């Protein structure tokens, strides 16, 4: 769809009006109380369903599966307005991950069975990749499925499965063969119900005191043979496609960090420096802030370059690793600055005040409520999704040939 700048202005108004009307206080509260990559579950899914009612939940999907058919500019505007309105970002497991994989590799039956529930927000899919003994080393995974007549029997476990305790569905990588190279015997499964006998989900409490990740245990869990997405033993192909899709489709970190920095700058103009002035007059604070601003500017430039790059070009692999490395390290430094800026009030443990809808006022300043959980949770930013050490290994391999 071609759109000119007048249309775009109209579109922005339309989006803004929708946000004003539909993003109620509890949804915005969820946006404000995000302390990791994943927003509070219930409000996020409620927002997802509201967007779906308007036809806007699956912004980057093709129209045939329920996408709104937006231009790139419209998507950018929509994302900007979401940030401005402070609504939670939708969870990526369905819309950004398993959905596109099903579109690409699924049978017609799988498509019609699973895609509508993802678009509508009726279903939530957990992602089962990591295992207790296969952190950044996917090829060594051990959770296995064996054929028994008309079904598979799964045994093993998955970990760091985000929000599995809220999920009704799950996609996962399982070992279906021990032959060939380690990654050749892997299949990509779609599990349609998590209440199957032998399947147990145990939430893991994080450093911030909240459950977000889960362990999932499989003890002779039976699933039908048609749960396999793509060919049996070809799950690696699906996983790789998904990884690339995820990368290409990821929204801008720089834009998000820019907002965080704006908040920090505004806040620094309010906070005292301990000597009667305000923090933003302290040249040491200013220099530290400006260094981070520069990091974000460079990240923004790198993201633009990456967006303009052809998929599959030889530099696109290392460039996506570079973005992961620099974005996650910058994010950690931003959260660190926020903690130091707010100081000792961030030490208060405020589980109730952080719970959306609990109606508990924070102890100490409102602005200090989320900074410590963000700092703690974002220590994971350089661990999950391929640790920064692994990302550096990837670039080194490219550089050294």
């Amino acid at each position: 769809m071609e759109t000119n700048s007048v249309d775009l202005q109209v579109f922005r108004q339309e989006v803004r009006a929708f946000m004003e009307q539909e993003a109620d206080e509890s949804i915005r509260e969820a946006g404000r109380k995000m302390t990791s990559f994943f927003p509070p579950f219930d409000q996020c899914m409620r927002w997802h369903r509201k967007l779906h009612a308007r036809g806007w939940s699956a912004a980057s999907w093709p129209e045939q599966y329920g996408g709104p058919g937006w231009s790139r500019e419209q998507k950018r505007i929509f994302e900007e307005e979401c940030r401005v309105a402070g609504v939670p970002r939708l969870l990526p497991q369905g819309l950004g991950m398993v959905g596109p994989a099903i579109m690409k590799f699924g049978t017609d039956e799988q498509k019609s069975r699973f895609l509508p529930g993802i678009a509508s927000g009726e279903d939530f899919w957990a992602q089962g990749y990591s295992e207790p003994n296969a952190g950044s080393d996917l090829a060594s995974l051990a959770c296995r499925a064996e054929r028994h007549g008309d079904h598979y029997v799964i045994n093993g476990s998955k970990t760091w499965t985000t929000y599995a305790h809220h999920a009704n569905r799950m996609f996962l990588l399982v070992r279906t063969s021990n032959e060939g190279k380690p990654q050749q015997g892997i299949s990509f499964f779609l599990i349609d119900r998590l209440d199957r006998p032998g399947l147990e989900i145990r939430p893991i409490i994080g450093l911030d005191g909240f459950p977000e990740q889960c362990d999932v245990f499989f003890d002779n869990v039976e699933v039908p043979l048609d749960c396999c997405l793509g060919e049996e033993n070809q799950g690696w192909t699906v996983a790789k496609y998904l990884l690339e899709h995820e990368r290409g489709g990821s929204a801008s970190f720089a834009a998000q960090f820019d907002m965080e920095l704006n908040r920090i700058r505004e806040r620094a103009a309010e906070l005292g420096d301990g000597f009667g002035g305000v923090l933003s007059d302290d040249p040491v604070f200013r220099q530290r802030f400006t260094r981070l601003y520069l990091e974000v500017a460079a990240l923004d430039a790198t993201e633009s370059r990456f967006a303009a790059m052809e998929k599959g070009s030889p530099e696109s692999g290392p460039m996506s690793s570079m973005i992961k490395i620099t974005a996650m390290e910058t994010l950690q430094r931003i959260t660190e600055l926020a903690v130091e800026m707010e100081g000792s009030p961030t030490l208060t443990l405020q589980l109730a005040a952080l719970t959306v809808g609990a109606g508990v006022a924070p102890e100490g300043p409102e602005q200090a409520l989320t900074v410590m959980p963000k700092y703690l949770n974002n220590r994971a930013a350089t661990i999950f999704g391929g640790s920064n050490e692994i990302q550096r290994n990837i670039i080194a391999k490219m550089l050294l040939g």
Partner: protein
Amino acid sequence: MAFLNDDTRVMLEDSVDKFLNAHYDFHQRRTWVEKAPGYNREHWQRFAELGWLGLPFAERHGGLGGDITDTLGLMRRFGAALVVEPYLSVVGLGGQAIAQADNQDAADSLLPELVAGQAMPVLAWEESISRGNPEHLAASARRIDGGWRLEGEKVAVIGGDLATHFVVSAQTFEDDAGPVVELFLLQADELEVAGFPTMDGHRGARLTLAAVDVDEARRLTRDGHGAGVLRQVLEQGIMMMAAEGVGAMQTLLRRTLDYTRTRRQFGVPIASFQVLQHRMVDMYIAMKNLEHLLEATANRWDQSPSHARDSALLKAQLCQSGRYVGQQAVQLHGGIGMTDELDVGHYFKRLTALGLLFGDENYHLKRAWAAL
């Protein structure tokens, strides 16, 4: 230099080791932390019986007559075992403030109770405007008939949730030369205490003093001496925190070495990756830098030309070392380091708290420059 003789100290530290080995298990600690009063009351009584609470107090108050440097071996062990009992708050800050202030009657009546494990006075100096600076405050004490009226708010009062008494700093306006800082002794039931748990498993409180009236006997300092006592107590407190930090880092480094030797990826223990090896070396160096600086600081404490400089540098080093060791311990543990289940994250959080309390790195580097 320490005041206790070596034998006494060695004996004491042995008793600490024995006690912690026998009674301080991480999983039990969780149960103490999770319910009121947030620590183990029986431990506190044992601390009293073993003489630990009296370590840096005069013999006439039931103490052992040591000074603050005598507590550092104990604090290091507390750090290594992640002890939550409020030793720093009560013995190091509240108790020391009373001991070093001018009001002998208050000291004579309260310190024996503290040493016996009954009274638990803590120090309330920080305000939302402080940013580490104890002399930048808004709380006030104004003369009223026969005493004083205190008003103001104190935040981040560590141990405030379980205190029996508070040593509160406030500005008085007696003098034409402008306000000076004095310390006052309040009972916990005389003011509004909003207690809360902290992210590191300790307890804190916010205090509201809405026109609290106390008699003259509650004033602990005279002639603006409160600022000096506060500075001294906080400087000593920084040494204790540094010792606790060293202990926590020792445990974290050992945990990380053990984990990386055991954990396998790509078919080998991850400790065989040179990048992780060097990271652990830098953790070791960060820890040793703090350990050595603390040792040097303590050794020359009684002849140091500037406690302000020494303690500011020490705190800045604690911030740096604690941040690096804590963050890298989590990173090298990977996902498991992010869980509440494992103690690693709790050490990391305690080091984070030690970095934030009593002024951050920026503040202390400024303070150090001013004292160079």
